[in-house]
């Protein structure tokens, strides 16, 4: 191999050194700053400037070393001449010698821009300019890569900004939703507490000797209170659905028994309007299924209640049919049909939306919050179905939905709660054995209500105005039962229960939460603290007696 002569070797060395100065950073400015000073020293030039097309179609000045000299570029007429020459012959290098032997070189960069070199003294040799061409092609590639990198980074930064904004909005929405749920829970508690007093006292009053007109007044108070309670329950349910906190239970239940009990309760409403209430129940349906019977009853109650509400003449029919069945599951089709006023297609579009009825006059004529159907639709959806409506104005309406329920081999335990007969039995039983009861309740009216109800059974009663007193009394007295309000000053019911459960008592009392906090989560919290049962306020006399019935007797 022939050795290279020194001048060719110098040229190759220069190319090698310049090439390896390129691309030391992915950012354009930093990349050029790590290239240009060393390149200028190697080329014995005093300044270097870079023009690049950054995507606009025209090359624009983007870098100078030394940076101080970029300010003079716009006033340099000779530089402008060079740039004009470049526009006519973009692929060629252009040179110009100015006063005092200073030279300007314009070297193209593969069509995307050019480099200007400023040098004093002897001109650069033409073969050196030729040797620079491939170096500037590499520099061009590096510049484009840097621009692409910066564009990508910018896009990434925008995407990250958008993500953060969305995250912030999500957190704000969640916080707002939490605040709303908490507000509803608090309001619900605040309304339930006095309502408990109203309903309870009305029940006590009903038991006393009254004149006919007085009895009617008491009955109206009870009906109004019950309606108000149902509205509060609707709002609570809706809040739970909106907050995504609706939890379904999987219980064994007898479907036919559930339907019969429901019809038994709602029949008086239909009879009151002179409507026939019919049931078609397919007998091949499995007797026992697994699902949330409470929520199913709530949906059917709502649909049947609406049907009765909006039907003046004729009948309301409930059909329960089996669509399919295997060893594990059954598809049950529920249909509620009426001969009422019907609904137009336009009205039906927003019928399942919250706070919406067919039209605003409906609210005035028939009452209600407009939450019932929205809640029912959400409950059915949560249970895996969808409510559908077929209707024409004046020709009645037909709501239907299908649910897949698991078939149960276990016979459902007979339902006792809520059945008046069972409640009466409980009352009788509760009066047979006397209990020593501590009523821990800070609200004087509710305390009085509990005292009056329990006095009917002849039980021994003591009261505590807060959790601290309740714990003290529990330590001293040997109570069979403590009725424990959840929200009390000084020490709340949950903490008081925890304290009582740690006391070295001869025997631990049965503790029943008695509270206006009606969420399932509250029930869980009570049971986890060591309570045995839970009654939501406002409670009926029957519910209280049923709770007493569960107290273990000596």
């Amino acid at each position, binding site marked *: 191999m022939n050795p290279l002569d020194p001048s060719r070797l110098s040229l190759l060395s*220069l190319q090698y050194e310049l090439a390896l*100065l390129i691309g030391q950073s992915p950012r354009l400015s930093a990349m050029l*700053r790590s290239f240009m*000073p060393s390149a200028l020293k190697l080329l014995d030039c*005093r*300044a270097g400037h870079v023009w690049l097309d950054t995507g606009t179609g025209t090359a624009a000045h983007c870098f100078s070393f*030394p940076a*101080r*000299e970029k300010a003079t570029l716009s006033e340099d007429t000779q530089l402008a001449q060079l740039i004009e020459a470049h526009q006519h012959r973009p692929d060629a290098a252009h040179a110009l010698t100015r006063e005092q032997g200073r030279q300007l070189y314009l070297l193209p960069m593969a069509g995307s821009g050019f480099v200007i070199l400023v040098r004093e003294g002897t001109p650069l040799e033409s073969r050196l300019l030729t040797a620079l061409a491939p170096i500037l092609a590499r520099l061009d590639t590096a510049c484009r890569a840097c621009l692409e990198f910066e564009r990508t980074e910018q896009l990434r930064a925008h995407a990250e900004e958008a993500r953060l904004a969305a995250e912030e909005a999500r957190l704000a929405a969640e916080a707002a939703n939490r605040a709303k749920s908490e507000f509803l829970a608090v309001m619900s508690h605040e309304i339930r507490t006095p309502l408990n007093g109203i309903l309870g006292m009305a029940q006590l009053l009903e038991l006393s000797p009254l004149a006919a007109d007085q009895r009617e007044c008491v009955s109206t108070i009870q009906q109004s209170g019950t309606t108000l309670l149902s509205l509060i329950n609707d709002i609570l349910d809706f809040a739970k659905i909106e907050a995504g906190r609706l939890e379904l239970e999987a219980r064994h239940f007898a479907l036919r028994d559930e339907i019969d009990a429901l019809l038994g309760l709602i029949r008086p409403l239909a009879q009151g309007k002179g409507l026939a209430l019919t049931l078609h129940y397919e007998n091949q349906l499995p007797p026992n299924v697994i699902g949330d019977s409470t929520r199913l009853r709530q949906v059917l109650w709502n649909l049947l209640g609406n049907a009765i509400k909006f039907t003046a003449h004729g009948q309301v029919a409930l059909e329960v049919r089996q669509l399919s069945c295997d060893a594990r599951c059954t598809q049950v089709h529920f249909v509620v049909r009426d001969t009422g006023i019907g609904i137009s297609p336009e009205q039906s579009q927003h019928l399942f939306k919250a706070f919406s009825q067919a039209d605003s006059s409906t609210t005035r004529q028939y009452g209600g919050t407009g939450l019932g159907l929205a809640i029912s639709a959400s409950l059915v959806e949560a249970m895996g179905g969808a409510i559908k409506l077929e209707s024409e104005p004046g020709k009645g309406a037909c709501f239907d939905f299908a649910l897949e329920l698991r078939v149960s081999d276990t016979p459902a335990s007979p339902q006792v709660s809520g059945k008046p007969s069972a409640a009466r039995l409980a009352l009788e039983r509760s009066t047979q054995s006397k209990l020593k009861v501590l009523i821990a309740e800070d609200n004087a009216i509710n305390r009085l209500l509990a005292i009056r109800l329990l006095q009917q059974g002849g039980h021994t009663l003591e009261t505590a105005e807060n959790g601290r007193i309740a714990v003290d009394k529990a330590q001293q007295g040997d109570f069979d039962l403590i009725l424990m309000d959840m929200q009390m000053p000084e020490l709340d019911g949950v903490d008081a229960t925890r304290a009582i459960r740690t006391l070295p008592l001869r025997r631990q009392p049965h503790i029943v939460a008695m509270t206006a906090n009606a969420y399932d989560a509250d029930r869980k919290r009570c049971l986890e603290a060591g309570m045995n049962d839970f009654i939501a306020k406002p409670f009926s006399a029957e519910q209280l007696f049923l709770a007493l019935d569960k107290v273990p007797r000596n």
Partner: protein
Amino acid sequence: MDETLLFSPEPTSKALFRLAEQALADGAQALMILAADGNRYDPVELSSWLQALPVPVCGGIFPQIVFGRMHHETGCIVHGLKGPVRIIETSGLSSSQADYSAELESALQDLPSPQTVFIVVDGLAQRIAAFLDGVYDMLGSDPVYFGGGAGSLDFQQRPCIFSNKGLLVDHAQMVLIDRPTRVGVRHGWQKHAGPFVVTQAERNRIISLDYQPAFELYRTLVDADCGDSINSENFFEIAKGYPFGMERAGGEVVVRDPITVVDGTLVCVGEVGPNSIVFLLKGQPEALIAAAESAALAVKDAGDAPVIMIDCISRVLFLEARFEEELAAVAAQLDGRALFGALTLGEIANRGDGCLEFFNKTMVLAGS
């Protein structure tokens, strides 16, 4: 401009204080102090004194100083300046993270471009070239730059820059002077072997050359020429005659002086870029002296102010007794004009027509 130039060969700080007082009494508006490392000043005492000075102060402690056509291992020179002078200091001259352009941009904002910039750096700092790139970036190619590296020949980094803040280490200092200056920059070293690729380098350390441990290759080349055996003990004694050179497009060579060998790597005065091409250089005393004379010719007609000499200490060590000839050759060209300066660890200049560079083993003369 009638400026004071005072010299004392005494190594004591008292001598320095006395000269400074005299310059101030003569109406100096700023002081440039060049002191010899042999004085072994107490840095604490000197810092207190510097902080109490009523005028701006610049300069440094160098291996030797030059005054009266002689070089001195002890003593000091005080130059009382009477024109407007602005001094800017930069710390962290070895910091790998420092962005000197950004730091200087705020310091130099709104300042008019000076005609002359005198620069003193800690000659043993590791990022001198990067700092000089920042200076050039911010001040541009119009000013004339000259200066050098302060420090000690034992190559231990210690406080060596005179400042109103005290005696500074790992700093750089720029003195902006509004007066035109002409510089002459020459070295006289010739290519001996090469080119070699710096295949691995870190700031001022060459780790490998042509894919071989740097010292191994260097030793092979140097031993073959000098007939001796270079090792870590006698390294500088022999290496002072065999520096590296980095070639520029016009044929000029920028010298890099290897001063020590540490774990097989060659430590230089100033950076050597990775992937750069270097030659091994060799000097002939006659060529070096002729180069110094040529540098003096470049500033001969600059003006009548004292000429400042920034010359590399390793030229003194290389030329030994013949360094007197170099001084005489320079003085002969200056027609009796005063000559003073420092023998430095690295020299700074832009040769008046190119980028600002950090040189080694080079004669820089500045006349105005």
